[in-house]
């Protein structure tokens, strides 16, 4: 119940008073985690619990790079998996192939986290368009595309 929206709490009082016939459990409530941020940086480091991020010039991502993932409204323990697929633009019919995969274990059973941050360095991706998928306990939560402009 800790995750019920403030709206629900505020409106519950008026509900019974107005006799709308709406029960508390019928109100919409966030019960599933969501990706708040997935960004790419030149460097990300943990500085005493604070994430220090170094941006790319003009936001042009070069390889190697770091991804910075923030997932909100998350509870219990589980695994977050981040996968990168390379898209070969020269051969349109060819399916993108998995190039990078990283698994993160998080949390403890019974605990609720307002957000959890995951970050890691990715090496070996060639310039071009790539797709990534973010899984939580083997269920796809979010996906997107990334363009790498050059390699160092």
């Amino acid at each position, binding site marked *: 119940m800790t995750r019920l*929206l*403030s*709206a*629900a709490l*505020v*409106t519950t009082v*008026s*509900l019974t008073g*107005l006799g*709308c*016939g*709406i029960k508390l459990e*019928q*109100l*919409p*409530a*966030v*019960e*599933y985690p*969501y*990706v*708040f*941020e997935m960004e790419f940086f030149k460097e990300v480091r943990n500085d005493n619990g604070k994430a220090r991020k170094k941006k790319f010039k*003009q936001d042009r991502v070069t390889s190697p790079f770091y991804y910075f993932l923030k997932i909100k409204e998350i509870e219990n323990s589980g695994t977050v998996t981040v*996968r990168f*697929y390379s*898209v070969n633009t020269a051969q349109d019919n060819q*399916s*993108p*192939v*998995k190039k990078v995969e990283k698994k993160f274990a998080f949390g403890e059973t019974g605990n609720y986290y307002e957000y959890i941050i995951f970050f890691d360095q990715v090496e070996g991706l060639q310039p071009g368009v790539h*797709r990534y*998928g973010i*899984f939580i306990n*083997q*269920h*796809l*939560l*979010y*996906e*997107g*595309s990334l363009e790498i402009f050059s390699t160092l």
Partner: protein
Amino acid sequence: MEKFIKFPCPNRIIRLACLIFLAVLYAGTVSPINAAESMKIKGGYFLFSDDLKYLYGSADILIKSKSVALSGDVIYLDVERLEGVVYGNVKLTLLSNKTADGKDAVGSGTWDAVYFNGLPARWLKISYSDVLHMDGDLTLKKGFSEFIKKTPEMLKNASLYYEFREFSINTDKKIKAKIVIPYMMGMPTMPLKKFTVNRGKWEDKTMVSFNNVNYSGLDGLSLSFFARLREKLLHGDYDLKLYERKLFNLDEPKRGFLFSGNNSFFPGKKNTKNNRLLSFTTLLNSGEKSFNLVFAHQLEGKYFRYALTQTISGRRALPTFFEFRYDLMLKGLKLLEPAFNVTHNLKQSYSYRVSTPLKLIKKLNLNVNWQRKIIKDNFLSDTSDFSTSLGYNASLFSLASNYNYSRNLLEASVRKNFSINMKLKPLHFLDRSIRFDISSVYMFSELPYGDQTLTRISPGITVALRSIGAKLPLGFKLVPGFNFNHLWDNRDESFTDFNYTLALSKEIGNFSASVDYALASRYRAENFWVEGNNRQNLNLNFSFIDHHNQNYSLLLRLYHNNQLALENISFTGKVNLLKDLNFSSFLLYYNKENKFRTVEVFIEKIFKKKIKIQGGYSLALKRFFIKFLTQ
């Protein structure tokens, strides 16, 4: 005896505004859903942004349409484009053997993502294993890869958003939801059992809406409303602005309204820009105590077009103005398009005009007009004007000329004007770094001057040289400019102008500095010698602008006069302090008077991208001020 004016208290105004708003919302709930094609979606949580027309949902998503049932964990739905994506352990079950475009449907199964587009939807199924495999309608691949996902935080930035657990969406993009909590400016309001959170297509429906509310210490409080009428016999669009100034001890007018409206009677398919059976525009201003009404009737046939217009306008203490206008234009003739026009003030003054563009040569724009204007008011006037204009655009030059012959029929006097301007096409040198413009002009006028006639002949030439600049050592840039203008005159008023400009600039990251110098000289021939004078000025500009993140923008300018002494200094600055909180300032200092002409310093906060609050001090107004503005 004192006279008291009863004015409705602000609570009543707010209550009235709320009632209108709720009436509009209620109208949304009672409108029936178009049963043509719809999709029903259930889940644990849905969030719809009214500003972005975008929806996010999560937990036990279940989508059901005529042909397909789908379940998943997360949904992103762009309502405007009617496209979305479902993530999670997505189970797709076919309920019909045919797809949206009538083909045999195959492919029930479980996927990591399903992208859909349109209604009935076309589907693209994606699995993220060792390879990224796609199946279904592969023409949707581009739409899937370019689909934009918006986070719940982005959606909650809207001034109006809704949370609910169940909804249906139809081809008109109308979303009817159950167990809805509306949020206005981030604050939850009364939960509703059923509610239409997006009305979908409603361009041609009657509606009333609250537009905005503004408050400033200078202008007082104002409320704006918009109304649209779309009935069988009448279409109309109306704007109403109510303002209150007396409550804030401001000058006249104390309070009032501004109303403007456009009406079109008997609208139909034939009602176009040039075809209106009867239209009626209104402008009312209670502050100025003025009004303006225009009735118009227009009709366009195969060989003609005509319009009848009646204008009535008035203002307090001034006589009411009437004007009737009749326009007739003949179409379909090969070389000309004659137009006839009459205006009448419903008294004794009137004018009639005949004009036509001549289509003799395609590139030649030749227009011929004749007008007779008779005024019988406080004075008598009867003039006959004949004018022609000619334009020609060739590959090397362009030409524009005008000739006007005006005869006063009462005084038998004649005025003549003629001008011709020829511009050579600009010449470019050094890879378009330098531009060279030459133009010449010839003007002739003959005006009555007592018993004599005053004739003036003035030929002239203008030469302009502009450059995009040259790079100098140490990163400096130099941009010179030159302009030469000479005008001969038969009345001994010939002169020659020379204008020079020179700009030197340097940029270091976000900082840039520049020096602008300008010198203008004019020379006149006086008998045996030449008289001349010069004027010069110098500006120093310094700017510090965050072009990338736009977090700050500071601009300092120093203006120097003809003696190159400092005349005044201006400074404009804007700094983002925190999220949506800006500090702005404007200063103007007069060096000669040794005082600030104006100083404006204020802080601006934007809430939910809709409400802007500004507070600060203005030296020009000599007061602190606060403003509430809605966008």
